[in-house]
């Protein structure tokens, strides 16, 4: 018998007798013998000690302690212990889909607080309970715009994360949507080119701030122009940067999305991450995802429930706003704990630290012969440098110095093989930055 079910032979015999079947094999009669696995070839079990030792050995081949200057959408920020301590409570950590209001008021309130924090952060009016990550969130935003305007052209700024753009095109592959991509000019949105595609066929323009190259910009003029032709504006943003930058809400954006990993979620080799979406009130019924709402019970006491569920697929089926029927509750929990522990002032200080350290890094690297820090736009905590050598080779050479130097932009942008995208968060010390410069000098 197999080792993984808790049933004894007696349990199984009793169940078979009850349903009038002779053996477990009989239950699989409908599957042709040629289609059945001969065996599952599962090796013999190991002790807890052996298993832990095996995985520890595997994980030791990760360079977890490497000094990280790699960003490109996912950042090495400090996670305060309170995030693990609180989100690790079994009520939050192990609960699955805890949305029955009669027994999940704690979770529903936490999600409501998370939604409120996202609104405060972005300057928007309504946020959902989270999406999977920033890329699919951006796709969902494009679909909201298409639904809301009834138009089918989406203008995409070339500074939007290339991974997100790929997700956007993959998801919409079988839909008749016209995408127009406008490459950036000197690291910024190329207004004249972008405006050429703004007319009554345009559903939305998709922008990112800071953009993939780290450049920051005020997109208010682009958003105003989009509105003038009845198109919507989608902004993909970096939460920590909002500690000091003009919010997308202030710029007039209609839909805001982004990656919430920087708010208390470890890098974890790619996930789980946290997508967020926040919109102007008028789009509340057009957005996907769960929404936690505040209400009162029959006795007038405040309570929380999942609301506006008629948008969702278990009710609307093919007319639903999306087929997403989940969210990233645990990650959203971590994010709200993270933001609460930082507070408004703390977030501002954190953003300033990121900015200052990146500026220090820029000035330090500028001094290296052959290295050109691109300064055509202001940046937040990420910037582009032009190297005298192939950036990919430089990054590989820097690993030997225990430094993950950044993203070679040639990976996503043809012709930029000598460009390196470097991120500097609050975790990078003066010594680490100076060490980076020293190592880079050697490698070059």
């Amino acid at each position, binding site marked *: 018998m197999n080792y993984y079910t808790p049933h004894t032979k007696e349990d199984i015999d009793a169940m078979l007798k009850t349903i009038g079947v002779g053996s477990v094999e009989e239950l699989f009669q409908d599957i042709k013998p040629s289609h059945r696995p001969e065996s599952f070839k599962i090796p013999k079990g190991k002790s807890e000690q052996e298993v832990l030792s095996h995985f520890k050995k595997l994980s030791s081949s990760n360079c977890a302690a490497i000094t990280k200057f790699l960003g490109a959408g996912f950042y090495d920020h400090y996670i305060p212990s309170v995030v693990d301590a609180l989100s690790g409570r079994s009520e939050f950590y192990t609960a699955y889909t805890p949305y029955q209001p009669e027994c999940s008021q704690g979770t529903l309130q936490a999600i409501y607080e998370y939604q409120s924090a996202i609104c405060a952060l972005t300057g928007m009016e309504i946020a959902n309970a989270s999406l999977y990550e920033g890329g699919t969130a951006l796709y969902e935003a494009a679909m909201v715009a298409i639904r809301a305007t009834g138009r089918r052209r989406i203008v995409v700024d070339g500074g939007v994360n290339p991974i997100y753009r790929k997700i956007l095109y993959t998801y919409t592959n079988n839909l008749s949507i016209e995408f127009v991509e406008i490459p950036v000019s000197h690291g910024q949105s190329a207004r004249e080119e972008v405006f050429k595609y703004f007319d009554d066929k345009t559903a939305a323009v998709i922008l990112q701030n800071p953009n993939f190259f780290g450049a920051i910009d005020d997109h208010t003029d682009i958003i105003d122009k989009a509105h003038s032709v009845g198109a919507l504006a989608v902004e993909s943003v970096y939460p920590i940067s909002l500690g000091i930058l003009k919010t997308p809400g202030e710029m007039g954006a209609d839909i805001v999305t982004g990656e919430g990993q920087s708010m208390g979620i470890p890098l974890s080799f790619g996930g789980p991450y946290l997508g967020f979406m926040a919109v102007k009130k008028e789009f509340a*019924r057009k957005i996907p995802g769960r929404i936690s709402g505040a209400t009162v019970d029959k006795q007038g006491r405040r309570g929380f429930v999942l609301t506006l569920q*008629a948008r969702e697929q278990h009710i609307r089926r093919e*007319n639903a706003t999306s087929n997403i029927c989940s969210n990233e509750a645990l990650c959203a929990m971590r994010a709200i704990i993270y933001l609460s522990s930082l507070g408004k002032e703390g977030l501002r200080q954190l953003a300033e630290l990121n900015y200052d350290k990146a500026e220090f890094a820029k000035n330090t690297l500028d001094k290296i012969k052959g290295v050109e820090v691109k300064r055509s736009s202001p940046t937040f905590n990420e910037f582009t440098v032009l190297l005298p050598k192939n950036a990919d080779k430089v990054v590989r050479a820097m690993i030997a110095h225990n430094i993950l130097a950044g993203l070679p932009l040639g990976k996503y942008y043809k012709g930029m093989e000598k460009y390196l995208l470097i991120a500097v968060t609050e975790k990078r010390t003066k010594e680490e930055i100076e060490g980076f410069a020293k190592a880079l000098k050697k490698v070059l």
Partner: protein
Amino acid sequence: MSIQDKLLYTKEHEWILIEGNKAKIGITYYAQAHLGDITYIEPPEVGKEVKRSDVLTTIESVKAASEVYAPMSGKVVEVNGNLDSSPELINKAPYDNGWIARIEIKDEAEKNNLMDSNKYKEYLKSIKE
């Protein structure tokens, strides 16, 4: 004669009251009773052209979201503005204050596809069985 007797009905439980070249549209008592408490109705766009059986709008209730179909072809010329703040009017007065939209009808002959109040009553009996 009650108001219901003057109306024409569809199998999808919409009613229509023809007033000259215009017509008022709503859903029947049976429809609102089965939907439950109505929480929201998306107002159809004024100026929207609909063909008979096209989706006019969607009604959301506590337990479902349901399409409202146009009983006849025409152009939406007016929507009931009270439904935004008081969607429950559809439950309380489905034939009266709970009307949904007014259209300018394209072809009066389309009314021959609809049931009068006696036929609708018989239809309701038949589906209840």
